[in-house]
C-alpha cells in the first residue's frame, strides 16, 4: 500500500517540487479552505447585495391608502 502511495506521489511529482512551489500550493489550498469555511458558517448572515436602485417603482406613493387588517 505504501509503495502504491509512493508511486502515485512520485507520479504527481509532489515530493520533487520546488519548496516555494509547495508553499504557494499550500497557501492557495489554505485560502480556499478558509473561504469555503466562511461560506459554510456565515452564508446565512451575509448581506446579499443591498442595492435596489434599479428596481422599478410601479405604484404611486402619494395616493397609497393602507388599511391594516388584523388576521385573527
Amino acid at each position, binding site marked *: 500500500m505504501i509503495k502504491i502511495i509512493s508511486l502515485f506521489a512520485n507520479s504527481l511529482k509532489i515530493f520533487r517540487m520546488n519548496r516555494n512551489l509547495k508553499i504557494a500550493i499550500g497557501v492557495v489550498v489554505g485560502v480556499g479552505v478558509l473561504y469555503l469555511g466562511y461560506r459554510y458558517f456565515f452564508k446565512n448572515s451575509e448581506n*446579499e447585495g*443591498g442595492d*435596489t436602485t434599479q428596481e422599478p*417603482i410601479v405604484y404611486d*406613493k402619494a395616493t*397609497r391608502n393602507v388599511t391594516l387588517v*388584523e388576521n385573527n
Partner: protein
Amino acid sequence: MAEVRLVYPAKGLVAPSSWGSKESIQKMVDTIDSKYGNFIDFVAKESNLPNKMITSFIAVESGGNPTAGTKGGATQGLMQWNRAYAQAQLEKELKQGRMTKGEKDKLASFGIKFDANGKTRAITNADQLKPELNILIGSIILGQLVDTDWGTENGEIKLDRIISVYNAGAYGDTGKKARSKIYKTPQDLAKVVNSVTRAYIQKILGVNGALQLTKTA
C-alpha cells in the same frame, strides 16, 4: 386613492422566543413609540405608510437604540440602512417625483439638499446617528420597496418580501426568491429564505411579533 391592505400576523408564523418574551417585545415597541413617536408620525404621514410598520422595522433593526451597529459602520443607526445606498435611494425618490415637500424640507434641515441635477451630498455616519433623519430615510426606502410590483400585489402589501429585500438585498438568493412572486404567503417565503431573514419575517409578521404588539395604527 390606491387602497392596499396590510394583513398581520401571518398564519403559521410566530415571533421567535430567542427575540424575547411577549412582554419584553411589547415594552420595546412601547419605548420606541414613546421616544420616537413624533418622528414616526411625521414620516408615516409623508410616506403614507402605517406607523406600526415603521416602528416594527426599528424594533428589529436596532431595538430602538440610535447607535446600534458597529461604530462608524456602513449600516449604523435605528433602521440600519447603508449610507451609500441611502444616498442613491434619495436621489431616485427625487428623480421619480415621489419626494414630498415635507420630506424635502426635513432633509434640507439636516443639510441634505439637491442640486439642479438631482444629486445630493454623501450621507455620513453622523447622519445615520440622528434618529429623526434615520427614520425619515428608512421610511423613504421602505416606501420604494412597497411600490414595486412584488412589494404590493393584488391590493396587498407583501411585507414578507419587503422584509427580505430590506434585510438581504434584492439580487442575492433571498432577494431573488422574495421578488419572484412565486411564494404567495409569508409562511412559504420564510421557509426558503436564509435563517436571519426568516427570523426577521417572524419578528415582524409572526404572532406576538412587532406589528401585532405595536399599539399605534
